[in-house]
């Protein structure tokens, strides 16, 4: 079995089969994470570079952990302490890193399409760890994995994504991935935080969260960036909380078993209250663990034999 692409750039064009293969493989890696020694030699001898041109704690941590548990050698860099500060272009940075014989590159960049640009120009496999407001495929894959693990299936599930849809790469990847796997997706946000092309995304659109939650199996609560207020997109954080905050009172009208997801980091008391985030139906910490398993699966599947060897 093999993925049809040697890069993971996004879920928009990924097939049902490829997503299924990644999720199946991730199940085996989750088992590895439950062993006394959580490390396997599958990527021994390969080198992975983590290029984080944008700050990230958990995604970077998760990737580094996944790489180490597969026995890959890793080099990591973040913009704060690198030559990017000295004015080097993306292409130059990467050409330099490639000259050091790297097999896989994990990249996060504020410019949408940066991973695609790399993939077209270097030999290494490229994994998109978030590009601007475009895609964050491994986050969406871990969301799919978490839901499939809980429900045993994805088709027929109804998922509501609430929050800043317009600026969210997680929402975009989630929508594409979930729809490919047969789930139905609704988004809910104030109009200022909905993307202009939302009607073409194949999702139901709600302004009223209570209506959106009717019949929903899952709610995925997005982080609200506080700077949206200073951009004039929101009147105030308090008003956002009142209209879109996920609270126990608001969930009174939803299914009792509604699953709570959040990609993190959480603004407690803003988009979600602690009682909900830490409640019995929250899978937020499962998402974190599953993230490592899913990233291991992606790294492993993309490491496959070079086509040159016959």
């Amino acid at each position, binding site marked *: *079995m*093999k993925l049809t692409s040697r890069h993971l750039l996004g879920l928009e064009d990924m097939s049902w089969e490829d997503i299924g293969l990644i999720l*199946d*493989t991730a*199940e*085996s*890696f989750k*088992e*590895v994470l439950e*062993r*006394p*020694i959580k*490390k*396997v*030699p*599958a990527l021994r*001898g*390969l080198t992975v570079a983590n290029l984080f041109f944008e700050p990230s704690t958990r995604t970077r941590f998760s990737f580094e952990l996944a790489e180490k548990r*597969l026995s890959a050698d890793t080099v990591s860099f973040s913009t704060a302490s690198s030559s990017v500060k000295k004015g080097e272009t993306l292409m130059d940075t990467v050409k330099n890193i490639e000259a050091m014989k790297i097999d896989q590159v994990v990249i996060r960049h504020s410019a949408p399409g940066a991973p695609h640009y790399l993939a077209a120009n270097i030999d290494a496999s490229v994994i998109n760890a978030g590009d601007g407001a475009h895609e964050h495929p491994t986050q969406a894959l871990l969301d799919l994995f978490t839901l499939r693990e809980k429900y045993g299936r994805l088709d027929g599930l109804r998922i509501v994504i609430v929050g800043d849809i317009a600026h969210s790469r997680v929402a975009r990847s989630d929508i594409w991935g979930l729809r490919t796997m047969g789930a139905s997706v609704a988004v809910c946000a104030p109009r200022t935080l909905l993307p202009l092309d939302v009607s073409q995304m194949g999702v139901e659109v709600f302004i009223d969260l209570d209506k959106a939650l009717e019949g929903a199996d899952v709610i995925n609560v997005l982080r609200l960036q506080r700077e949206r207020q200073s951009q004039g997109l929101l009147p105030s954080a308090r008003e956002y909380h009142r209209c879109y905050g996920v609270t126990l009172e608001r969930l009174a009208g939803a299914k009792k078993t509604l699953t709570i997801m959040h990609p993190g980091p959480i603004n407690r008391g803003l988009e979600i209250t602690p009682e909900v985030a830490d409640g019995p139906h929250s899978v937020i910490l499962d998402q974190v663990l599953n993230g490592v398993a899913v990233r291991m699966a992606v790294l*492993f*599947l993309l*490491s*496959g*034999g*070079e*086509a040159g*060897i*016959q």
Partner: protein
Amino acid sequence: MSQILDAKDIQRAIARIAHEIIEHNRGAADVVVVGIRARGDYLAARIAGVIESIEQVSIPVGVIDITLYRDDLQVVLEQPVVHKTEIPFDIEGKAVILVDDVLNTGRTIRAALDQLMDFGRPRSVQLAVLVDRGHRELPIRADYVGKNVPTARGQRVVVRVGEVDGSDEVVVEKEPRRRRT
């Protein structure tokens, strides 16, 4: 294609291996059985079943998937499908009987041993195989062998088990024209 073991032969071989394991370990007190996917797991369960009926003890059975420990992951064209390893018991201080269907180069066993050691420190590891076909590339030998079958490199030994293949038999066939995976 020629059949070298039929269902009866396999049954007898497994019964003999089970007896040898009990004899060698003077009972089955600390014995656990771990089969290597994708045929060794079924043989492991059968061997454990025979030991249980003779010794009247319960024998833990585990399954090992060696994909992530293979030494040719970067060489093969297609990434093999990874399955789960399931060893839901402690192997520390136990006599682990590792079971595979065919012993050939020994590389699978090397990978299984490496993985086993990640689960704990067994008192001993013993190897049981249904067929030993030769062509070793590593210093590995089996403690219990169902049948020694001298083969040519171009041949392939196929073990079929009722649980997945519908019937029990071992056949030797000509390798189809493709690279080994």
